[in-house]
């Protein structure tokens, strides 16, 4: 009897004794993977400079995380993929023109990444503790710091080496400045407009343009249950509804015309799809209870449209998500999950 035990040193640990195969790093790398289609389309449309900008973001993010953790003697977690993901998302959120020879603005992605990883994430304790979406803070920070470089958009030339592509306005920029008629004129006709917006042949940030590719990645994540419908659908639904109600303008007076907006244009343009499926859904910075997530999504949608329609800036997704990030701890406080048995009891 006794020798049985000696032969086998028994391992003692608490239950449960079996664990699911899912790990944090597997989740993060899978999300990275699901962003690839959109990234490749950006690469295709904007050429080598899209690749450079994104790679620069990824490298600086990962290095920032590595050196910070070294400096404060924390466990190194760079290979869990979350810093890589922050870098990738930041890169996909930047204009491709940041890497052209004139003006030479490669410090922008680097500063954005350092702010994202060091200040927004590591200062708060690293993965899981940050209040704000790191990639979006990184982007907002450089947008305010380098407003010119960050608002120069280039044409999608689909040429590999298009380092000096012509600058142009984004669809939302045109919509805001010159109205719907002009936007349709630029793209030929309405059907063509929708089609180009859908496949991503338009000016914009590297990874935000192709709705098709983003939907493929998002569908994969939904299928794998890495994200659920709650945030994206409530976000997109609110945008569509508000775009329809408040997005219309009378062609003669330029005044707002109720119930005459075009929800599709608002849904397909800007960074909405990227934001709704990949950034608003960041686990760490969204509410964790489903009810709360729906509130969060609606809030994001409403703020996006407020900024797009009333604000001075054509695109509102980034600020909308960041503003809602402020409210997440409050939502979490107000909406805890329903304890088994407690609800029925109250109803009686």
């Amino acid at each position, binding site marked *: 009897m006794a020798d049985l035990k000696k032969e086998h040193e028994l391992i003692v640990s608490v239950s449960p004794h079996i664990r699911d195969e899912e790990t944090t790093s597997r989740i993060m790398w899978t999300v990275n993977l699901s962003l690839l289609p959109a990234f490749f389309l950006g690469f295709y449309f904007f050429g080598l400079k899209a690749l450079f900008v994104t790679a620069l973001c990824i490298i600086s993010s990962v290095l920032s995380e590595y050196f910070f953790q070294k400096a*404060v003697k924390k466990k190194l977690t760079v290979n869990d993929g979350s810093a890589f993901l922050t870098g990738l998302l930041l890169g996909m959120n930047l204009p491709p023109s940041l890497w052209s020879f004139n003006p030479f603005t490669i410090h922008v992605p680097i500063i954005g990444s350092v702010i994202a990883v060091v*200040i*927004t994430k*590591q*200062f*708060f*304790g*690293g993965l899981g*503790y940050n*209040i*704000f979406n790191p990639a979006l*803070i990184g982007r*907002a*920070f450089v947008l*305010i710091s380098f407003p010119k470089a960050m608002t120069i958009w280039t044409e999608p030339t689909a040429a590999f080496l298009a380092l000096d592509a012509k600058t142009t306005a984004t669809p939302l920029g045109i919509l805001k400045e010159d109205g719907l008629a002009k936007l349709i004129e630029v793209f030929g006709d309405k059907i063509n407009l929708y089609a180009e917006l859908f496949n991503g042949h338009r000016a914009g940030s590297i990874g935000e343009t192709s709705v098709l590719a983003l939907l493929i990645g998002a569908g994969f994540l939904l299928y794998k249950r890495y994200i659920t419908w709650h945030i994206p659908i409530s976000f997109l639904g609110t945008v569509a509804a508000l775009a329809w109600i408040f997005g219309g303008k009378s062609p003669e007076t330029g005044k707002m015309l109720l119930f005459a907006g075009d929800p599709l244009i608002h849904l397909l343009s800007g960074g909405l799809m990227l934001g709704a499926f990949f950034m608003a859904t960041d686990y760490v910075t969204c509410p964790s209870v489903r009810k709360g997530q729906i509130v969060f999504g609606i809030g994001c949608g409403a*703020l996006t449209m*407020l*900024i797009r329609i*009333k*604000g*001075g*800036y054509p695109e*509102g997704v*980034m*600020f*909308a998500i*960041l*503003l809602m*990030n*402020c*409210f997440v*701890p*409050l939502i*979490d*406080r107000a909406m805890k999950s329903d304890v088994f048995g407690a609800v029925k009891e109250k109803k009686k």
Partner: protein
Amino acid sequence: MEKLFELFIAAALINNFVFTRYLGLCIFFGVTKKMDTSIGMSITFTSVMVISAALNWIIYKFIMIPLGLGFLEIVIFIGVVAGFVQAADTIMKKVSPGLYFKLGIYLALITTNCIILAVPLLNVSEGYSFIESIFFSFGAGVGFSLAMIIMASIREKLELADVPKAFQGLPISFIVTGLIALAFMGFSGLITL
């Protein structure tokens, strides 16, 4: 009406006193360690804000201007605030001891908050009418309350975070405030004042 609404929104969100005008920071950082204290302070502060701004407007318009005493604004405004706070303290203690127990402690702090003084000063320098002053000060109070409540909820969450030691407490709170201020830039340009 639209102007009043705009004044309110601008004071509460777009030019939020904490996030864009950097005012009231001592109280803001002082009371937001706990949600309860922030809520107590919010209620007390907003009420005192509106009432004392109204009092100050009346005194400025009907006493100081006619007598040419505009240069005494600092002394008079702070005096009115301090006097009102003292009176509120005494009255509340008598009339509603329960409420006093809950909110009274915050009254004493309010006199050293710069927003309470900045709002009457701004009302004067922008030349707001009585109604405008009321809306403006109410917006300021609501905006400050919003800021405190957001901050308290975040700081309670930060209690559980692994913030590096040197940054625990105030430094990280400043950084959070900076990040919120960055997010609040999204509201810029909504209204032109």
